[in-house]
C-alpha cells in the first residue's frame, strides 16, 4: 500500500515544492480556504475518526470544535517536541515530507480561525527547524502563506520556535508556557487550551503526525480515511520500532496490525533470535506488556485492543525487550529519565521520581532487600493520580507493571 504520511518513501523529492504540488499538494488547503467554511473543515476531520497521534488519542475534530469563538485571536501550535524515549516519527515526517505537515498546520489554522501558528520543535531539532524555515519561506513566496490567501481575506503566518532540551515541554500547557518565554511547567487544567491557551487565547495544540494526516483526509474524504484501521482507531499510524529487533525504524501501517507482524514481518525479528519477553508500546511512559504466551503477539495494535493487555498504545513507540533484559535494570533506566525530566512544579512527581530513583538504583546494584522492592511499588502507587500532569503518572507505569508482572526479576537481585 502506498504511504499516506511517509510519502517520501514512494515519491522521491516530495520535499521540493514543485514535486509536492505536482502530487496534489496544497489543493486541499486552497479548496478549504476558497470553498469551505471553517466548521465544514472541522466536520470532515471529525467524521474521519482521526485521533491525536501524540499519545492521548483524543479525537482531533472534536478538539477543534472546542475552540472558543467568543475570545480572539486564536492560535494553532504544532507539537514537534518529540522527546519520548522510543519515538522518532515526527522527525522523519518533518525532514522528508515537510510540506504535507505544513499544509496540515495551515488547514487546521483555517478551521479554527487562527492567523498565526507556531511549530514548537525540541531544541535538538535545530537543523530541522532551519529546514522548516526554508520551506515556510518557499510557501510564502508561492502564495500559500501570507496575506489574503487565494484572493480571500484569510491570512496566515507560520513560525518555528525551538525548545531547549526539556521533555516536559511536550505536555501541551508546558509547551505554551515555553513559547511565552517561561520555564516549561504545566498549567493546572482546566481551563484547557481551546479556551485558554497561548497568551491566554484559544489555542489548538496538535501533534505533527496528526496534522500530517489532515491534507489527505480533506482531499479524499472522511470515508476514505475510515476505511483503514479499525472501528475505534481509524486510519494509519507510524509505529516507531526500537529495542532488541533486527530492523528498527518507522513503519506506517493501518491500526490493527499485530505486534507479531510489526516485530517479525517488518522488524526482521528479535536480535540473536531471542524470545520477546516484554513490549513497551508507548515508549518509556508505557506499561510493560508481559509476553508469557505467544498469543500476546497476535494482539492487534489499536487503542482498544492494547488496553486489554493492561497497557496503552499511546504514541505507538514500540520498544521490544528480549529475555536477556532484567526488569530491575530497565526500570532503573526509565525512572532516571523521569527524575531528570520532572519539571519540579508538583511535589508528588518531583519527590516521587527522586525517591524512586534511589530505590531502583539500590535494587539494581544488588544492595536492596525484598522490603525495598515493596517500598518502591508503594511509592509508585502513592504517586498515581496525584501529579499535576501526565509525566508523573508516566514515571510509575513501568515501575508498577515491572514489579507486578516480573517479580521474579527482582527476587533474583535482592538480598535474602
Amino acid at each position, binding site marked *: 500500500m502506498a504511504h499516506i504520511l511517509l510519502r517520501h518513501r514512494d515519491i522521491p523529492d516530495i520535499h521540493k515544492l514543485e514535486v509536492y504540488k505536482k502530487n496534489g499538494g496544497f489543493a486541499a488547503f486552497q479548496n478549504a480556504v476558497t470553498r469551505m467554511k471553517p466548521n465544514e473543515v472541522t466536520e470532515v476531520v471529525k467524521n474521519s475518526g482521526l485521533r491525536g497521534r501524540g499519545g492521548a488519542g483524543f479525537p482531533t475534530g472534536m478538539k477543534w470544535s472546542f475552540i472558543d469563538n467568543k475570545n480572539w485571536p486564536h492560535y494553532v501550535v504544532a507539537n514537534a517536541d*518529540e*522527546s*519520548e*524515549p*522510543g*519515538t*522518532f516519527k*515526527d*522527525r522523519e515526517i518533518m525532514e522528508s515530507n515537510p510540506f504535507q505537515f505544513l499544509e496540515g498546520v495551515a488547514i487546521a489554522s483555517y478551521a479554527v480561525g487562527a492567523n498565526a501558528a507556531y511549530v514548537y520543535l*525540541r*531544541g*535538538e*531539532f*535545530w*537543523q530541522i527547524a*532551519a529546514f522548516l524555515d526554508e520551506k515556510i519561506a518557499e510557501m510564502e513566496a508561492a502564495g500559500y502563506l501570507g496575506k489574503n490567501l487565494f484572493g480571500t481575506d484569510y491570512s496566515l503566518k507560520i*513560525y518555528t*520556535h*525551538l*525548545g*531547549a*532540551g*526539556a*521533555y516536559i515541554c511536550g505536555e501541551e500547557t508546558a509547551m505554551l508556557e*515555553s*513559547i*511565552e*518565554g*517561561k*520555564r*516549561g511547567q504545566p498549567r493546572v487544567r482546566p481551563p484547557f487550551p481551546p479556551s485558554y491557551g497561548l*497568551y491566554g487565547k484559544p489555542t489548538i495544540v496538535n501533534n505533527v503526525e496528526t496534522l500530517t494526516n489532515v491534507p489527505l483526509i480533506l482531499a479524499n474524504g472522511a470515508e476514505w480515511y475510515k476505511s483503514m484501521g479499525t472501528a475505534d482507531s481509524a486510519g494509519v499510524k507510524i509505529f*516507531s*520500532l*526500537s*529495542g*532488541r529487533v533486527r530492523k*528498527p*525504524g*518507522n513503519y506506517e501501517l493501518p491500526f490493527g496490525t499485530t505486534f507479531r507482524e510489526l516485530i517479525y514481518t517488518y522488524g526482521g525479528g528479535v536480535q540473536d533470535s531471542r524470545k520477546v519477553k516484554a513490549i*513497551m508500546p508507548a*515508549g*518509556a511512559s508505557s506499561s510493560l506488556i508481559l509476553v508469557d504466551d505467544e498469543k500476546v503477539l497476535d494482539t492487534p495494535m489499536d487503542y482498544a485492543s492494547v488496553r486489554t493487555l493492561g497497557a496503552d498504545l499511546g504514541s505507538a*513507540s514500540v*520498544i521490544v*525487550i528480549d529475555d536477556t*533484559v532484567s526488569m530491575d535494570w*530497565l526500570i532503573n*533506566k*526509565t525512572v532516571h*529519565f523521569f527524575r*531528570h*525530566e520532572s*519539571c519540579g512544579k508538583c511535589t508528588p512527581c518531583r519527590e516521587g521520581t527522586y525517591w524512586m530513583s534511589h530505590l531502583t538504583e539500590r535494587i539494581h546494584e544488588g544492595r536492596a532487600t525484598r522490603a525495598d522492592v515493596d517500598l518502591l511499588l508503594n511509592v509508585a502507587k502513592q504517586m498515581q493520580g496525584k501529579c499535576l500532569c501526565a509525566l508523573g503518572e508516566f514515571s510509575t507505569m513501568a515501575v508498577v507493571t515491572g514489579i507486578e508482572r516480573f517479580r521474579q526479576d527482582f527476587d533474583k537481585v535482592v538480598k535474602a
Partner: protein
Amino acid sequence: MSLAEKYPKEVKQILAKYPPEHKRSAVMPLLYLAQREEGYITKAAMQDIARMLDISETDVASIVGFYTLYHDKKEGKYRMQVCTDLPCALRGADEFLDNLCANLGIKVGETTPDGVITLEAVMCLAACDKAPVFQTQGPDGIKYHENMTVDKTMELIEALRKSSA
C-alpha cells in the same frame, strides 16, 4: 557589545516572530544567539536580554537553569552528548559511552585537556533506531551523528580538533 548591536538582523527577525506585547517569548531564541560564540551565556548577556524584553534578570537566569541546552559555564568548544536512554541502551549505548571515555581518557562530564570536547550523557534524542547516537553542540549549532562506532567518533573528534587548532 549588546546582542542587538552584534546581531541586528537576527534580533529583529526573532522579535518579529511574536506579538509585540508578548516580546518575552523571544527569550529562548535570544539565549541561543547569546550562546552562539562562546558556548555559554554570560551574566552580562542575561542582563542585556532582560533589558531588551523588560523582564528581570532572575527570569532570564531561571530559563537558562531550566533548559538543558543552555549553559552558564564555559566547557569544551563542542559538547558531545550521547543518548543512554532505554531504547539506545538496548542497542549498546552504555558500552559505546564507556569505550569512548576509555579512548578519550576522560569521564562523563569532563573535558579533553585541549578544551575541544566535553563528553556528556543526555536523555532521548529521538533517534532510537540509529543508536549509538549523539549530538554535538557547538558554535555551528546542533548536529546529529547516528549509527556511530567508537572508531568513527574518534575520526570525527580528530576533525573537530584540526578545525579548532
